[in-house]
């Protein structure tokens, strides 16, 4: 029996494909770009990577519930910005949204650029025989900066193409990337450690001009770097201390589906949880499988040592250049198990799609926030202009590109220790997520009518709304992360002001992050005052009209 009659009306659509939603969330927690990049940097941690992956996924699943629930209660609203503005106030909403979805993305550009050179440019150039160019990209500051500039061009093109086209690029990249990963895993699972050693020595020498004995030299350098990351084990305390680094990789399933159909019920809430949750679960399982395959053929200790050898030198802790002059990319190692340059090229090209299907996200969220702020008159109207011929939001793009070039320059040449700021990219967004999570926790109590008339009103845990319970768990996790990052009691992360005597007091990092919040506050309160002089009371235009 029908329990609802709907008529033909604009916008009443059927449910979207959960598989599609899965694809976009899956690319957001990108195992090959974010995952392998962070795993390689975590060489000095003591908690097992496999249990850390599982524990982090459990906590992040509550993030999925929080976001799916907010989407169900306030769909089509504009996400974090509107949720926080409506529940916590306009100033908090604006400041946390522009810092987390716009300003900090400037820092992500050199990180995307760094991954671009290590995952796409260097291995492909090496395989194609352009050894000098490959090494220039891999090992020079100019190469790093150029890679960021190329990244900026590529993602700007994605923005110009529009979301409709980029969504198709993402989907194509998903299937191509998965095929590449399947080949990599099969190569690793069917290969042997002896074959890997032989392949590494011969290919590293032939493609990248490494000296013979790369394997043994890397083991020595990695050991000297303090490579310690265990595959499993490590104790619960050490595993938890691994999480603030690991979430650089997997804190992002909420960047996927944010759709919620009109006149739709709890099913769409579950579909969002399924899409984002499956992305988290499948990525975690794939990660475990890939790491197992790495462990089997490359050897876990060698993999961690190679990461240590690379980053210990890159971060300036050692003057001993890595014996392998390119970033230790497991897909490249897998490709070395084949002697065919064609096979190697195909594997790396397919794996490159993980980067192309993901990289557009760096500007998509930013342009949305810039537009929303302009529509709210908190930025000049000009920034939301779209070029009529190309459909490109040129001014919004410039607000991303110009600061990104500056930050990429500072990062590439490590001015003011910018290369130590990597985890700031995660911290600032985590603060934004915390604002949203607090909004979720209090929503049933501050907006009871809205909550009671929502599709999640009946989801409770021991009589407490599920959104609140999930928010408290995820919020607690975020507070733990922020405590570790900012006060860094075990001197592990290097972006805060460590309370450990031996820890790093990273004043530059704190100034960098703090200045973003100051800039956001200046924009908000500056424009608010400016609009007030023009007769617009920003408090009023965001306030609820009385219902009487």
């Amino acid at each position, binding site marked *: *029996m*029908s*329990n*609802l*009659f*709907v008529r*033909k*009306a*604009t*916008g*009443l*659509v059927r449910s*979207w*494909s959960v598989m*599609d939603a899965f694809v*976009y969330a899956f690319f957001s927690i990108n195992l090959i770009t974010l995952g392998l990049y962070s795993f390689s940097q975590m060489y000095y941690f003591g908690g097992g990577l496999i249990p850390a992956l599982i524990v982090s996924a459990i906590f992040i699943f509550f993030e999925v519930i929080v976001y799916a629930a907010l989407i169900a209660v306030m*769909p*089509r*609203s504009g996400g974090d910005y*509107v949720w926080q503005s409506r529940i916590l106030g306009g100033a908090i909403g604006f400041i946390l949204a522009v810092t987390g979805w716009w300003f900090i993305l400037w820092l992500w550009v050199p990180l995307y650029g760094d991954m671009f050179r290590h995952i796409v440019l260097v291995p492909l150039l090496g395989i194609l025989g352009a050894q000098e160019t490959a090494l220039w990209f891999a090992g020079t500051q100019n190469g790093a900066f150029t890679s960021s500039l190329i990244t900026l061009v590529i993602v700007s093109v994605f923005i110009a193409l529009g*979301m*409709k086209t980029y*969504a198709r690029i*993402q*989907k194509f990249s998903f299937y191509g990337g998965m095929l590449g990963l399947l080949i990599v895993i099969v190569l690793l699972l069917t290969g042997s450690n002896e074959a890997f050693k032989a392949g590494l020595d011969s290919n590293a020498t032939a493609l990248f001009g490494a000296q013979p004995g790369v394997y043994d030299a890397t083991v020595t350098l990695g050991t000297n770097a303090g490579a310690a990351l265990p595959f499993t084990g490590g104790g619960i305390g050490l595993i938890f201390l691994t999480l603030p680094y690991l979430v650089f990789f997997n804190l992002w399933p909420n960047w996927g*589906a*944010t*759709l919620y159909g*009109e*006149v*739709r*019920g*709890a099913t769409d809430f579950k579909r969002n949880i399924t899409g984002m949750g499956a992305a988290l679960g499948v990525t975690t399982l794939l990660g475990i499988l890939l790491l197992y395959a790495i462990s089997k053929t490359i050897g876990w200790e060698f993999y961690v040592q190679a990461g240590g050898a690379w980053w210990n030198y890159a971060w300036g802790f050692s003057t001993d250049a890595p014996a392998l002059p390119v970033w230790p990319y497991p897909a490249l190692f897998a490709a070395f198990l084949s002697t065919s340059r064609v096979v190697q090229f195909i594997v790396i090209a397919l794996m490159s799609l993980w980067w192309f299907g993901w990289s557009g996200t760096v500007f998509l969220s930013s342009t949305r926030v810039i*537009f929303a702020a*302009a*529509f*709210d*008159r908190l930025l000049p*109207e000009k920034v*939301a*202009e*779209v070029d009529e011929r190309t*459909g490109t939001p040129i001014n919004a793009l410039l607000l991303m590109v110009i600061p990104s070039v500056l930050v990429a320059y500072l990062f590439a040449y490590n001015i003011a220790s910018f290369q130590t700021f990597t985890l700031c990219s995660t911290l600032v967004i985590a603060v934004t997520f915390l604002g949203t999570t607090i909004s979720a926790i209090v929503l049933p109590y501050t907006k009871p*009518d*809205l909550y009671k*008339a*929502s*599709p999640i*009103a*009946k989801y409770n845990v021991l009589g407490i709304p599920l959104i609140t319970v999930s928010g408290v768990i995820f919020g607690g996790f975020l507070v733990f992360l922020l405590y570790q990052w900012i006060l860094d009691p075990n001197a592990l992360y290097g972006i805060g002001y460590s309370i450990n005597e031996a820890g790093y007091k990273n004043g530059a990092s704190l100034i960098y992050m703090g200045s973003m919040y100051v800039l956001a506050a200046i924009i908000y309160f500056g424009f608010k005052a400016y*609009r007030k002089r*023009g*007769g*617009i009371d920003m408090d009023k*235009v*965001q306030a*609820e*009209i*009385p*219902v009487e």
Partner: protein
Amino acid sequence: MTKLFFATDIHGSDICWTKFLNAGKFYDVDVLILGGDMTGKAVVPVIHQGGKNYSITLLEQNFDVTTDEELQDMVKRVRSRGYYPYMTNPDEMAELEKDPERVHQIFLQEVLKVVQQWMDFADKKLDGTDMKVYCSPGNDDMDEVDEIVRASRRVLLVEGQVTPLDPHHEMIASGWSNRTPWDTHREEDEDQLEVRYEAMISKLKDPRNAVFNIHVPPYKSNLDEAPELDENLRPKMAGQALKPVGSTALRKVIENSQPLLGLHGHIHEGRGTSRIGKTLCINPGSMYEQGTLLGAIVALGKNKIENYVLTSG
């Protein structure tokens, strides 16, 4: 200077209608303009199970009501989302399953009942004020809605008309849209839309100082981006793939006439502003299901827009 408040697509939400009527005083404006799509999209059966017991399924959640207070609360919840509660019983529900025409009649009856309540409320609330309220039903609104609005003392039906807003500004209005996949009440081909628009524009004294209150947004204005759908009305790419669905006819007449202001709706996700030449086009979007009245305040000056802002009330 005339200050107007524009909201649209409130789709049967009592909360949004009340907020709309209160917006004049709240935002200190002279004119209230409601874009199209006043009527709701769903009827929620409230099934009598004997005594004071009722069962209701709202947003796929089942509720069993056993007291008058609970019933009132549930009806309020249903109305807060813009849906229409319909008191019925299991026998009638079984009949309705087999009789779509009867369901249609119930829909019409409930829609018109609420529109009548809204007009009565507006007449009462605005009595003694000089607030002007203009309304032009949209493509989702049945034709029968017009008669009820026309009978209101305080809400003026402006569909197809040229309406003077002040000595310098006139407004044309239409709730008709280009074709949609839903075959709604007021939609037609682009060439017919163009004829409709031109008929109004030709009566304007000064098109460059006019307001085009047209429900559908202009094509490729970024106010008309909607999820691309497949043949089964399922969003492609999980809704990530957006495409422009606005009216090409409207874009053409705006490009030619260059009015001061375009007020649009239709695409709830399309909240924003856009310039087509010198024309400022606004789609305030809609969050009617959450009882949030999205809108726009615009101050019309002589030959220019003095100021504007999107609101979230």
